[in-house]
């Protein structure tokens, strides 16, 4: 269709609310090109642009408002959408077709209510006392943090999903925390009595007191603490701080005031197209009532947003909202809780149940099946969500249960059962975050994707919560095989082995040379030469295991040119030289030496992103002399040429900075000196920041460390470069020894299991189990590998020697640095010209 709208003919679309659902709607509108047809204005009452409320409690464990934001700060502006932050709509004037704020009146043609909900505060006398707070917005969290400053104890009123999230947040503020729930168990919506009891045990094991079946009668002055809560049985509980998190209520006052049709228990009534009783007004998210229900989860809110966009942009797909599944999979304070469909079995006449309870491992699983035992209608999990995906597939797709349905929840030595990918119908949802079906995966493969990474790139599957990674992988592998694509993981034609298999062979058999490896384990047709794929990979593995000098005669033919000459080849065949500058700290006299060497050998100098100095244009035959001078001045090789530890970038930290809470430079130097010389599947970069301002940009590094008042927070698997990825929080508030041990294990586990040339970010995305798996292995030592990984790291550290210092004292090794074996003159084809006062290739 052709758009003939002139600028003034655009309709005015106003969206009230800039929460997760309101923001999702804006994203969908932008994606559909709605700004061609509408002038879009969004009103948000908060200071912040839309942020991730699902992960709000991480605000206390290192994340700030910026990292929780759902988009870049200029996203709205860049896409032609007006965002009016901190402007609260006070009235809708339907007769005039205007919304009213304190600042003015704004005309609309179409209006969307995405005002969300507010926390319900039970009508308890004393609930308006100071330090009685709620948990919903970043400002609420700031208020909680402030109130917690002189508090030692905190109580959360409400033991549901949000209540436990709030309790986790209070724990994050180091308060002795208690949860008070009116119902006889925690999470009454999601779990039954037995599940609730198990959940209580697990939460109490974490040091959180759990009081259920308690109705608070009043809150008065305490004796030992600020508040005293008095319960129905006259028992009391004293605490310094109270957070109400006892459910939500729709923020429907604007709709009520302008007489839109309301639900019986509040909320704006909408139809399948998200239209209210006034067809120019739509409502989405937690303010909307559909079929007498309010959906208090983000997933259904997103579906409503998509339906609302379809209503505003009528096109070929008449997408409507038809209710949403409230199945959820959660990790609350590290405790798995899952709930699928009719988990209580009270909505399905004649439903039958299977239940499994293990009080030692603290696991509980329940299946609710149809009266004929053939279909799954609901399920409940406490303690281990690895059963969730398979159960969800049976439920979601109405698949017939196996002959022995109990096997789906019984423990087995092979781990949680998985559903064969071939059993899934085409319509099966694989990734619910991005709504990717099996048919979408197949389409991606038919369009040419030949591996998991390509399918993920095409469909976005498994790039949200990552919960479906294992399922996606099995579907992809199965579909590839079904199409006759042999999923060959061999590293190259010379070895019918993966990099991981080669690594294990080298470790187990103690093989120390390429020739021995290829003789014993090379592919049968191999002539023993290898190639430019397997040789550097094996060189890297040998170095990771034994750390012998890479310039030794048996290793030298394996190396890429950069490793061979321990410098970075540039496009004209000259090299760049980067001495190590640990943590980016360098003394004036060393800086002067770098300048003198650069001047003497006519090198172009540039400061790198990793806080060191790169000297470009070094001729091959000059490298040994250059390094002779650098080593004499106390420099070491910087491994800028290797797939190995590069730099540990740091901010200046508490030594100088007014805001620093730890010595980030000292830590960076310590870490750089510890891990220098570690060869790995790809390069590794670190960052250390001295406070949460994060000036070292540690969250864009493979390993990022951010100082806290209590120690160090450790982030892993970040990346800058082509595909930026924020590092994820692995562990918090660690002391130095614990942190170093954790990094030892993390790096060695990466070295051991990654593919060749796979950065930590891609490795993590392909790793089954994702970050949780990494945490299990390196923090909780679930595989019992901890000591082994640490001792392997220690071997690398103990065998460290500056490669340039080693080469320079060996005349045999230096022979390689002749440009020509029969002529000492330099290569005449290297021609330089001058630009901005330095030399560059002509």
């Amino acid at each position, binding site marked *: 269709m052709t758009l003939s709208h002139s600028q003034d003919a655009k309709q005015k679309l106003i969206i009230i609310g800039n929460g997760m659902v309101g923001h999702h709607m804006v994203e969908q509108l932008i994606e559909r090109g709605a700004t061609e047809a509408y002038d879009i204005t969004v009103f948000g009452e908060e200071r912040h642009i839309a942020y991730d409320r699902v992960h709000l409690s991480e605000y206390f464990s290192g994340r700030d408002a910026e990292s929780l934001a759902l988009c870049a700060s200029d996203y709205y502006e860049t896409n032609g959408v007006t965002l009016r932050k901190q402007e609260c709509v006070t009235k809708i004037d339907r007769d005039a077709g205007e919304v009213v704020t304190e600042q003015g009146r704004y005309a609309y043609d179409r209006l969307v209510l995405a005002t969300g909900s507010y926390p319900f505060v039970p009508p308890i006398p004393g609930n308006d006392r100071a330090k009685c707070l709620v948990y919903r917005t970043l400002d609420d969290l700031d208020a909680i943090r402030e109130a917690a400053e002189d508090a030692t104890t905190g109580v959360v009123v409400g033991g549901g999903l949000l209540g436990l999230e709030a309790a986790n947040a209070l724990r994050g503020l180091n308060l002795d925390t208690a949860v008070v729930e009116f119902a006889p168990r925690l999470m009454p919506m999601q779990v039954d009595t037995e599940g609730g009891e198990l959940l209580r045990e697990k939460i109490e094991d974490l040091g959180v007191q759990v009081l259920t079946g308690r109705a608070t009668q009043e809150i008065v002055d305490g004796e030992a603490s600020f508040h005293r809560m008095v319960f129905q049985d006259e028992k009391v509980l004293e605490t310094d701080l109270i957070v109400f998190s006892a459910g939500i209520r729709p923020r429907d006052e604007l709709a009520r005031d302008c007489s839109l049709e309301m639900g019986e228990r509040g909320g704006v009534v909408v139809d399948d197209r998200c239209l209210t009783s006034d067809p120019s007004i739509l409502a989405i998210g937690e303010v909307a009532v559909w079929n007498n229900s309010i959906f208090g989860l983000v997933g259904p809110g997103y579906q409503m947003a998509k339906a609302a966009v379809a209503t505003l942009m009528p096109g070929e797909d008449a997408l409507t909202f038809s209710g949403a599944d409230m199945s959820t999979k959660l990790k609350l304070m590290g405790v798995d809780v899952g709930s699928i469909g009719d988990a209580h079995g009270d909505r399905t006449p004649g439903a039958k149940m299977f239940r499994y309870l293990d009080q030692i491992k603290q696991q509980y699983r329940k299946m609710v099946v149809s009266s004929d035992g053939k279909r799954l209608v609901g399920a409940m999990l406490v303690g281990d969500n690895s059963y969730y995906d398979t159960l969800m597939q049976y439920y979601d797709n109405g698949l017939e249960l196996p002959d022995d349905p109990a096997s789906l929840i019984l423990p087995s030595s092979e781990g949680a059962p998985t559903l064969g990918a071939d059993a899934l119908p085409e319509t099966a949802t694989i990734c619910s975050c991005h709504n990717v079906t099996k048919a979408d995966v197949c389409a991606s493969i038919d369009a040419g994707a030949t591996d998991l990474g390509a399918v993920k790139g095409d469909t976005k599957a498994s790039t949200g919560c990552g919960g479906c990674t294992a399922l996606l992988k099995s579907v992809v592998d199965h579909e590839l095989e079904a199409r006759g694509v042999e999923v060959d993981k061999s590293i190259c034609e010379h070895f019918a082995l993966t990099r991981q298999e080669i690594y294990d062979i080298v470790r187990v058999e103690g093989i120390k040379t390429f020739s021995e490896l290829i003789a014993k384990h090379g592919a049968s047709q191999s002539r023993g030469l290898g190639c430019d794929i397997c040789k550097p990979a094996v060189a890297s593995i040998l170095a990771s295991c034994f750390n012998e000098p890479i310039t030794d005669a048996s290793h030298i033919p394996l190396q890429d040119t950069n490793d061979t000459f321990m410098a970075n*080849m540039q496009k004209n065949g000259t090299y760049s030289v980067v001495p190590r500058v640990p943590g980016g700290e360098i003394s004036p006299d060393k800086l002067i030496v770098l300048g003198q060497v650069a001047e003497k050998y006519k090198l172009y100098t540039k400061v790198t992103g990793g806080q060191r100095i790169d000297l470009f244009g070094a001729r091959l035959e000059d490298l040994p002399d250059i390094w002779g001078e650098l080593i004499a001045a106390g420099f070491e090789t910087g491994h800028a040429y290797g797939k190995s530890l590069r730099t540990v970038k740091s901010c200046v930290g508490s030594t100088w900075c007014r805001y620093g809470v730890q010595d980030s430079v000292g830590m960076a130097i310590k870490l750089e000196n510890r891990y220098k010389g570690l060869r790995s599947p790809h390069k590794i970069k670190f960052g250390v920041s001295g406070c949460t301002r994060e000036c070292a940009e540690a969250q864009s590094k493979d390993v990022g460390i951010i100082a806290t008042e209590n120690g160090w927070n450790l982030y892993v698997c970040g990346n800058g470069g082509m595909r930026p990825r924020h590092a994820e929080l692995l562990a918090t508030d660690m002391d130095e020894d614990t942190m170093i041990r954790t990094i030892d294990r993390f790096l060695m586990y990466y070295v051991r299991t990654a593919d060749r040339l796979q950065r930590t970010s891609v490795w993590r995305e392909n790793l089954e189990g994702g970050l949780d798996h990494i945490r299990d292995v390196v923090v909780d030592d679930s595989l019992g590998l901890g000591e082994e990984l640490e001792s392997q790291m220690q071997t690398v550290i103990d065998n460290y020697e500056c490669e340039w210092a080693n080469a320079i004292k060996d005349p045999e090794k230096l022979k390689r640095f002749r440009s020509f*074996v029969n002529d000492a003159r330099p290569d005449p084809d290297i021609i330089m010209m001058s630009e901005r006062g330095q030399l560059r290739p002509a």
Partner: protein
Amino acid sequence: MSTATAMKPEAETDMSWQPLCTKADLVEFSGIAAWIETAEGPAQVAIFYLPGHDQELYAVDHHDPFSNANVVARGIVGDIKGEPVVASPIYKQHFRLKDGSCVEDDSVALRTWKLSFKGDEVGIEV
């Protein structure tokens, strides 16, 4: 295998043997660079040494036509389906050592020369 036995009948008058270096200058399973004199003038060659293989010595252009830098001797030696190749260290194209042809682009080829040992000396036939 190719010791100084395989003497070609030196019938052509311009066929001559230029000594370049000694065996000790070679790097096993890797390359070095040298200057040679040809009819068209001086040229840079890359010399590869594969001890124990049917043909132990190879010489191809040191000049990489894709990057226009003189770097071929610094590439990694390997084989593709049994044929010995060197990978350019800059943009990683592979050249067959036997005839200099490029695996990725059959319109491109390096020149090749014949090398042999005379005792400990390595020389080239030009």
